[in-house]
């Protein structure tokens, strides 16, 4: 009881801080100078219709590199941790009930659709909302549906690891090419900017997003696959 009241006091202090913050805050009337630069010069400098993509991939490409690295480290740690679980009784997999006819049929219909949707999302990242991370997540969910429809199926971890490392290396290589052929690391003006709003435009942004999408998708699939295998082992 005493502990809870102490926590309540701490929380009240936080509430006061939050209230003062909200009370002193006024909604912006115009863009901040940085954002204004992005908005006015972004379409001509980067050529991406989606300004968020321009910020994520080009102007703040280092953030994305760090983010992808964090995801990679997370997936590696999770794989390491889950491999520490010792497998005992494999006959327990027998009690898994197979998925119903309707679900397996629907998943056969839906999985290609989801893969295509994921590819659409990350190829069109510079034109419509979405991008590598969302597309990767959708591809990973397609594999989740595969595992749900058939609990005994197994993902091939070697292929997943290969896709992941190849796309990671390609991402960094394209970034390094930017130093030599264009203005700096992860500069997208290696290729021609093309016509604004076309699918093949904005320099290497579609290419970069394809690699990010494959990398994120294989990492998330890796996590899910490891989790699902530990389910079966015990």
């Amino acid at each position, binding site marked *: 009881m005493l502990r809870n009241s102490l926590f309540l006091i701490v929380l009240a202090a936080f509430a006061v801080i939050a209230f003062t913050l909200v009370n002193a805050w006024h909604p912006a009337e115009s863009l901040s100078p940085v954002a204004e630069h992005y908005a006015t010069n972004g379409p001509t400098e980067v050529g991406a219709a989606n300004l968020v993509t321009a910020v994520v991939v080009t102007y703040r490409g280092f953030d994305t590199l760090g983010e992808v690295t964090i995801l990679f480290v997370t997936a590696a740690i999770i794989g390491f941790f889950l491999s520490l679980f010792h497998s005992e009784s494999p006959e327990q997999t027998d009690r898994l*009930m197979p998925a119903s006819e309707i679900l397996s049929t629907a998943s056969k219909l839906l999985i290609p659709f989801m893969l295509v949707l994921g590819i659409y999302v990350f190829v069109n990242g510079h034109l419509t909302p979405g991008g590598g991370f969302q597309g990767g997540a959708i591809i990973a969910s397609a594999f989740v549906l595969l595992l749900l429809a058939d609990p005994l199926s197994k993902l091939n971890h070697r292929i997943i690891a290969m896709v992941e490392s190849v796309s990671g290396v390609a991402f960094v290589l394209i970034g390094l090419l930017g130093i030599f052929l264009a203005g700096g690391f992860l500069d997208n003006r290696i290729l021609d900017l093309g016509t604004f709003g076309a699918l093949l435009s904005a320099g290497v942004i579609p290419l970069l997003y394809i690699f990010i999408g494959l990398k994120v998708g294989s990492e998330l699939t890796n996590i899910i696959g490891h989790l699902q295998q530990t*389910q079966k082992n015990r």
Partner: protein
Amino acid sequence: MVNTILIIAAVVILLSMLLSLFRFLKGPSTFDRIISFDVMTISSIGLIALIAWFANRIIYLDIAIVYGLLSFLGVIIIAKFLEKSL
């Protein structure tokens, strides 16, 4: 005219979400809550389409597709979990 009718439609969808929220709060079993979750997300697809109309941007419809997909997956996974066949 069209705008007014669509605003009324959006308000009706919000009311239906509140009703399914009531079932979520009351539902005796977990399955009632799942079905209420399902109805909420299905109604949200219509709501997102209406929001896309209000904002006059076609790109918002992409979100509706992904939204429907992922909520479907969530429903399937919790059902399989309760069936003890995950």
